[in-house]
């Protein structure tokens, strides 16, 4: 097992190097430079050249890449132009906010999705099944940012139950209830699509399992229906649902970008959007590398978990 994990970790190194090259090249190729973004209307060629020199952007591309990579390996991600602070400080702060949001959404969509799928399958074609299928289809179809805006209008502007945006109240907040109040809408909006996908998948996996012989045997020997469905069948259906949870976790993380914009959640997605618009090269590069590394590590973790469940995968 340790060998397998080591092998997977080693194979991640070329992936990460590839990512650094790609993100560096993309940032070098997109039109516009930080100096133009900073100077705005005053971006005369002369001013742009001077500012780029002050920012260290006048060196050749290859040299800049290796300086950046070398610094990063020693833990120095550089300084953000647009926020005037170390990139790593910013990422650390922002990433914890994203983890809270995406983590909550992931837990929500896993529980709600599997539950909805199981109920649907256990009572196929019942009113409950039809109602759940309808709600699930809406969850899958409505874009999350639109859902988010509608939630703001209803719960924050009209009913005034929840705050519109941000992570903590500006005054008198900062505790757990305050966080939960701010988290409720973005987490639900972010979880909606994944909940739908997981519910659909759990439903079909459950239906498949419920037709198996051993389920009939269980029923025949008089096991109560509740235990048949939620004890025997659900457990067996999970084997095909868990890998999808891994994929959905990735979608939840990337979906956080829109949701963070709508709810002004101070996470890494909003940071990247702002940084791209301001051509904040080091912040974009550092952010992308950091998020990619998390994504790669997460995928390895899912693979390892799966190989623990099913040793045939370990080849």
């Amino acid at each position, binding site marked *: 097992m340790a060998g397998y994990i080591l092998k997977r970790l080693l194979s991640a190194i070329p992936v990460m190097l590839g990512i650094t090259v790609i993100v560096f090249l993309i940032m070098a190729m997109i039109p516009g430079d930080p100096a133009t973004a900073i100077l705005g*209307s005053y971006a005369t060629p002369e001013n742009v050249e001077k500012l780029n020199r002050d920012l260290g952007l006048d060196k050749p591309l290859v040299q800049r890449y290796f300086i950046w990579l070398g610094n990063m390996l020693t833990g120095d991600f550089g300084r953000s132009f647009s926020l005037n*602070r170390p990139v790593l400080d910013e990422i650390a702060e922002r990433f914890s906010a994203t983890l809270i949001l995406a983590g909550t959404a992931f837990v929500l969509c896993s529980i709600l999705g599997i539950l909805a799928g199981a109920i649907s399958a256990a009572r196929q074609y019942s009113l409950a099944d039809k109602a759940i299928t309808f709600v699930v289809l809406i969850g899958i179809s409505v874009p999350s940012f639109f859902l988010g805006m509608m939630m703001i209008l209803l719960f924050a502007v009209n009913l005034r139950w929840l*705050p519109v945006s941000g992570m903590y109240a500006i005054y008198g907040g900062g505790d757990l209830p305050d966080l939960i109040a701010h988290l409720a809408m973005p987490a639900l909006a972010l979880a909606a699509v994944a909940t739908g996908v997981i519910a659909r998948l759990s439903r079909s996996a459950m239906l498949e399992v419920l037709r198996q012989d051993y389920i009939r045997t269980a029923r025949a020997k008089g096991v109560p229906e509740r235990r048949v469905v939620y004890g025997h069948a659900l457990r067996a259906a999970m084997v095909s649902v868990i890998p999808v949870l891994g994929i959905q976790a990735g979608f939840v993380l990337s979906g956080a970008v829109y949701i963070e914009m709508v709810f002004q959640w101070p996470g890494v997605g909003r940071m990247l959007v702002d940084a791209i618009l301001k051509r904040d090269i080091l912040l974009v590069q550092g952010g992308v590398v950091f998020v990619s590394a998390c994504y790669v590590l997460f995928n390895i973790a899912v693979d390892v978990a799966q190989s623990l469940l099913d040793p045939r995968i370990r080849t």
Partner: protein
Amino acid sequence: MDIWNWTRRGALAASAAALLAGAATLGAAPAIAQTPPGVLIVGQIAEPKSLDPAAVTAVNDFRILVNLYEGLVQYSPGTLEVAPALATDWTISDDGTVYTFTLRDGVTFHDGTPFNAEAVKFNFDRMLDESHPFHDTGPFPLAFFFSAVETVEAVDELTVKFTLSEPYAPFLSNLAYPTGLIVSPSAVEASGADFGRAPVGTGPFKFAEWRSNEAVVIERNPDYWGDPAGTEAVVFRPITDANTRVAEMLAGGIDLMVEVPPVALSQFQGDDFTLAEQAGPHLWFLILNAKEGPFADKRVRQAANYAINKEALVNDVLEGTAEVAAGPTPPAFAWAHDEELEPYPYDPEKAKELLAEAGAEGATLTFYVTEGGSGMLDPVPMGTAIQADLAAVGFDVKIETYEWNTFLGEVNPGLEGKADMAEMAWMTNDPDTLPFLALRTDAWPDEGGFNSGYYSNPEVDALLEKARVSTDQAERADLYRQMQRIVQDDAPWVFVANWKQNAVTSSRVENFALEPSFLLMLKDVAKN
């Protein structure tokens, strides 16, 4: 079997969800309680870059800075005229190269150190002198505002003398611009490159706290030399999404919101909100390529000015958030603007006549449009409406749309060989800036200027050069008025709109007014 009562696990999950929902409602009570009295919460459009006035360029950041710091001079309220601030008085030598300021006595920075001539010298040396020990706290992108400054000399404790390399009339209004705000030398020495996150000035408010991506908090300065601020504290919240900003304002999460999107204005009618408007030194225009193609002919350029229905753009596309522009100088520069100048009327027939005269009927035009950008208002709908107006007089207009930074990269180096016209907007602090940088022959892109349409008129060049070295405001005003009349007739641009900045305040906010400088002066604002 009851659907809500089938397993213990289900019951557990359901109760967990209920708990979450319950906690949410519970938490909601303090979270959405009314904002406290005496504390003004401002919805900003972005996180500030830094609170070091020498290091920033964005109006968004200036809105905070002007409440923390003061300059030697300031714009007097409601105008763009220069008035005393930290300097009580000044004299200008006859040749316009030596400015001597008398400083206000008894002013201290928020860190307790005295404001004096040495502090002023430190500020400008830090920006301009590359060998200054704290020059590395930059870069200082707008330092060129003061590039004419040769030396700054502390004559005595309260007298400071600026010597310029050549006469430069916009010097005083550049000093009033936020780049000229005075920082505490001892605080820069203490914080170094992190000064932008621990700012110290002399203003009516002092810095309290900066929570990244959440809020910048400033508090009333109890030792302020003038009348104390009207609120205990001001909180600036960055809310980058315009829809969310509107929702926060409607829900009572913020007390003051700047840059209300035109389409959202109707939501703020009624007694709960007050809408403030103020035309600023802003011009939205179309650069026409006067070097080649149909717009090389003055009659075709004038035809474009007649063909575009500016009233409709301003009222229907911009929902009344701008006024129709006449000539290159915005009316906000009241002292330099020619009141008698009338905008080109909307007259498609006249446009067709001019086109027939010039033999340019049915010309094909390439039109650069941007997706958004500083001061660009609603560039895509504006661009399409303009395309339609020009099509109505026989032009065949092809639009090419670019993201803002890419757009600047295409337009600033000049339109030659690429396009016939491009959208552009400028916001300036002196009537000199825009024409000097964008209309002179010596400001063609290859000379390092912004004259991307290659307009050239020696008369205009001479008037602008002369206005720049004159130290007599009446004489400058006369020169600018002559320039405006010539430029209006030559039509190197289509003069479209002057933006009216807007802001909404809740009914709890009093004494709020917008300034033509687009700065947000909050000293006298009160909140109940």
